[in-house]
């Protein structure tokens, strides 16, 4: 009995080609239907402004600043990062995707899209946040490194979970419920690092940053292995 091998294009060079094909398609589709992009950005912006409005300019400690920043980023991620997969299920194009490119290319294309999307979101939100809480990080380099590595960790682990949520009917809250336990340590570490960078004393704990990137690497590896089980129909 021939083992029912799943759909995979030949050779690695065409894998890269496949990934770009998927990435280009995703970018064009997301760019054309800018609704979801706008909603995520608006959500992040509004929660930033809400935080500073509610706090009324009262200065809080660097730890609290870091906590609030990462909560805003976490919930904006929960709002926007599953869309790339749930759109495929909602519009019924997942079968088209399944037939035309191999699963790894599909996943990697969407992973890159999510990382870039979240990076853009961070680039827009973090300065706004710093402006609103009038905080200037003591060590900007460390601060930026912490924010970026935390963002990469969040977006790379939630991509795979987005695929699961898409198959499960794509209700937003389900995405938050299943990705929170996985992201908890990422949030702890990013908050600790960002707080460290906001304060004047303290040193850059490179170990934490390395952990965040190693975490993303591990999570991407696991997701690639398990993606077959999730995305391929029964």
């Amino acid at each position, binding site marked *: 009995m021939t083992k029912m091998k799943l759909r*995979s294009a030949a050779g690695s060079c065409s894998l890269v080609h496949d990934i770009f094909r998927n990435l280009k*398609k995703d970018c*064009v*589709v997301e760019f054309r239907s800018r609704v979801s992009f706008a909603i995520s950005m608006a959500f992040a912006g509004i929660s930033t402004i809400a935080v500073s409005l509610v706090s009324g300019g009262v200065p809080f400690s660097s730890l609290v600043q870091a906590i609030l920043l990462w909560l805003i980023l976490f919930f904006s991620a929960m709002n926007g990062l599953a869309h790339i997969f749930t759109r495929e299920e909602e519009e*019924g*194009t997942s*079968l088209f995707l399944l037939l*035309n490119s*191999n699963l790894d290319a599909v996943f990697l294309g969407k992973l890159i899209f999510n990382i870039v999307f979240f990076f853009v979101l961070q680039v827009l939100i973090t300065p706004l946040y710093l402006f609103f809480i009038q905080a200037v990080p003591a060590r900007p380099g460390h601060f930026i490194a912490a924010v970026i590595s935390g963002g990469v960790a969040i977006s790379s682990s939630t991509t795979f979970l987005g695929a699961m949520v898409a198959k499960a009917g794509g209700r937003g809250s389900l995405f938050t419920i299943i990705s929170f336990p996985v992201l908890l340590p990422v949030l702890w570490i990013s908050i600790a690092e960002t707080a460290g960078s906001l304060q004047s004393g303290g040193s850059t704990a490179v170990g934490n940053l390395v952990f965040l990137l190693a975490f993303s690497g591990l999570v991407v590896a696991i997701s690639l292995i398990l993606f077959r089980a999730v995305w391929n129909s*029964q």
Partner: protein
Amino acid sequence: MAVIPVKEIEAKSLSKKFGRTWIFRDLNFSVKTGSSLAVVGPNGSGKSTLLQILAGIQRPSLGAVLFTADGLTIPDHEKNESIGFISPLFLPYRELSGRENLEFAARDKAGLARSCELLDMLGLDRHKDKQVKSYSTGMIQRLKYCIALCGDPFFLFLDEPGSNLDDDGREAMYRHLVSIKNERVLVIATNDQNEAALCSRELLLGS
């Protein structure tokens, strides 16, 4: 290719059940190059499911599907590239235009050129660069036909290809199908009699 290899798809005691009810059991048939099979039967008899299993999208509960070229089993990635599939569940991207959908589906330039040509033949040349959002269902069906054929597939699994097409669209599609079916393996699932008449053999499901 001067000599066309005899490719064949063979279903061995295929059976499928959803939850606890058996959709079909112990289907055994094989379709060689040049011959074609029409899968007919009442609604809900598992025609679409059978086609998805043949196309490798779904896994059968029991039995297997063998793809052979001159008796040798075709490796999977090669097999995946040589399958064309149409089904009501299969939708192109609405934000992309007809041509962009084909660009995504075609693996190489030649495939893209061939399918654009086919698109013009089916009367979609004026709408090629408009977003699929603005297409009618008939136009989407023609685009789906071009997408299925853009990789020059050897195995064609068409689930109600002629659905919501108007007369000349249907007529153009059938004419093209007849012209290409003798060097390909063709399986059509349909309720429409003259579509079934295109094929040399018939398989009744859900009896």
